[in-house]
């Protein structure tokens, strides 16, 4: 078995990084990259509330936005922050907010409003370990499902992306803004304390205006304001203030935006909110794989967790284990098609309850061969990942290890 493993990265920024090479190389934080990615994508409003470990995004934004004619709002709470972003976006300005778990919980009200009214904006959630305040400076991955089901009431799909390096955070933020414009929906960047706080090599293009990969804001000036019953994407977002007569509300709506209480209307709205995303999954596929072609066991991870997992996979291969890795970048809609191989899977995530592992169990051919290695508040060590991969490959189970949870 070759120790070297074939690596594949499927994401739009593979091409972007080839096209734009003039710029600065910096040693910078993930929060810096998330901020600069947003500015590069045309974000002109940030409204949020300080919270560790997302606070630095607010601070960077407060410095950068006035320089580019944008606006920094320090909201009275996260709930207000996301509603302010929705208002700014409805007025025609691209907007972003950033938070961590306790603030994310407060945003569900605004999520529902933005999802149902098809308002483009970007939300960064730098996850820390919980529940509640938990340990403020430690990483977690507890909002995998919360980010999918970011509002009550059901009847919608969501788009959630997760970077695993500072450089990727920059490009992925531009991508998140593009998808929010094209799909007319909030896009969540689900990152974590490690990726947001750590400093790494970062390339930033010299001229943001030259980034023709950025999807500009367009305005929908005519009916239908809400193409209910249609799965079309690339419909220009609605705008308040140009006299189109658009109506935006919290109710099940008609194509004009009028509130309505009829089954047909509920059906048509749901068809739109779900199928504009489900029917265009090919536009939303972002992942990295390593050595999956010859693997007997594939480690699965995302975000910061994928960093030690990747090293662990390479180390396991050196020790003769046919190991591979799937790093999810698109978390939602879930990339079921990556789990068609009938092999063992070892899902490594930063929580003890087991969230990502449930989706892998659902998507994989044999759920009995899907194993869980949960760790909470710090990354898996490379030794733990290697032990897990060896255990699954040779004995069909993850060995007993301190601070590792395997029960789902």
């Amino acid at each position, binding site marked *: 078995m070759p120790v070297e493993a074939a690596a594949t990265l499927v994401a739009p920024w593979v091409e972007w990084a080839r096209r734009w090479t003039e*710029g*600065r190389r910096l040693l910078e934080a993930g929060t810096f990259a998330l901020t600069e990615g947003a*500015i590069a994508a045309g974000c002109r*409003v940030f*409204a949020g509330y300080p919270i560790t470990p997302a606070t630095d995004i607010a601070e960077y934004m407060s410095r*950068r936005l*006035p*320089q*580019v*004619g*944008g*606006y920094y*709002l320090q*909201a*009275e*709470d996260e*709930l*207000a*922050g996301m*509603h*302010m*972003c*929705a*208002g*700014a*976006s*409805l*007025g*025609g*300005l691209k*907007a972003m907010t950033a938070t961590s778990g306790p603030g994310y919980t407060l945003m569900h*009200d*605004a999520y*529902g*409003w933005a999802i149902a009214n098809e308002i483009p904006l970007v939300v960064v959630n730098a996850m820390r370990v919980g529940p509640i305040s938990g340990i403020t400076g430690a990483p977690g991955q507890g909002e995998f499902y919360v980010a999918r089901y970011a509002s009550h009431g059901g009847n919608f799909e969501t788009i959630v992306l997760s970077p695993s390096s500072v450089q990727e955070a920059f490009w992925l933020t531009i991508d998140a803004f593009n998808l929010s414009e094209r799909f007319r929906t909030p896009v969540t960047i689900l990152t974590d304390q490690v990726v947001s706080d750590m400093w790494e090599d970062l390339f*930033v*293009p*010299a001229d*943001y205006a030259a980034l023709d990969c950025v999807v500009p804001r367009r305005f929908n000036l005519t009916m239908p304001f809400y193409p209910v019953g249609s799965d079309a994407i690339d419909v220009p977002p609605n705008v*308040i*203030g*140009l*006299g*189109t*007569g*658009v*109506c*935006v*509300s*919290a*109710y099940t709506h008609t194509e004009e*935006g*009028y*509130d309505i209480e009829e089954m047909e209307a509920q059906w048509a709205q749901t068809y739109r909110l779900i199928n504009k995303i489900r029917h265009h999954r090919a536009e939303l596929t972002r992942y990295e794989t390593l050595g999956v072609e010859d693997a007997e066991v594939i480690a699965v991870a995302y975000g910061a967790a994928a960093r030690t997992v990747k090293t662990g996979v390479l180390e396991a291969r050196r020790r003769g284990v046919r190991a591979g890795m799937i790093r999810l970048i698109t978390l939602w809609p879930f990339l079921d098609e990556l789990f068609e191989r009938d092999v063992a899977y070892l899902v490594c995530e930063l929580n003890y309850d087991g969230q990502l592992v449930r989706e892998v169990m659902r998507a994989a051919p044999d759920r009995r061969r899907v194993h869980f290695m949960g760790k909470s508040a710090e990354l898996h060590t490379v030794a733990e990942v290697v032990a897990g991969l060896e255990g699954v490959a040779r004995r069909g189970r993850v060995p007993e290890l301190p601070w590792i949870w395997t029960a789902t």
Partner: protein
Amino acid sequence: MNRLAKKYLRPSQIPTKACHGCGIGMIENWLLQALDELGLGPEDVIFGTGIGCVGRQTFATWGGDNFGATHGRALAVATGLKLAQPDKKYLIVVGDGDAASIGTSHLIHAARRNLGVVVICEDNMGYESTGGQFSPTTPAGYVTNSSPYGMVEPSFDPCDVVIAAGATFVAETTATQWHLTVKVVKKALQNDGFSFIHVRFPCNENFGAYALGTRDTLKNLEWIYEHTQGRRADGSPTDFTWRTGIRHDASNSRPEFTRLLRELNARVQARAAGAPAPAGA
């Protein structure tokens, strides 16, 4: 349809679904009169509302661009919108739940920032669309469907709250005061800053029926009128008196919030133009 409704509202969305004798439609007509007297058209005004009787009855009646936020959040949405569309007038028409309970923090901070919007708090003194429970503006001691023994909590006056927070125009009126209402709405629209108008109106179905013992519109209006005067028709004093009229007028005395942000941007960009440009930005 009257002339003002024809000019400003959507024929398909009026009359509203309001209960008989509800004051919401009447007050909306008075808002239209104020706009008309100031020469403002549907294209000049963004109309925002929330949830509850006032949200449900006014949403989408406005002929121009309009929004109905989730409960309490109309001012948070308006704060973002005003940045993007600073030249519009904003009528944020909400109820006592939106303004004085679930959304009070947004109200206070919009007043503190002097956000350039007019908030009309149409107050039927309880949660009437959910069947008549007390709210923070229900007079203490009154019976509602969640205070069957009389409301134990003291109520508060939202005008006092926004004055303390820094609102630059504040007035109180009722559904029995047509001329006063039109006058203060006009003054509010001429303040380039945060204006707040508290308008009490009768709910016959719930507050009237349970707190006052009648579903008679005129009797409920009379009860409100008596409490603006401090005495009943028979000359006896009422149990309390509302202070209607202009409560605070510091119109145009301090800069509107989004203007401050635009001025900040001009300062930052002027300073940057005189200095070496930050690399890569």
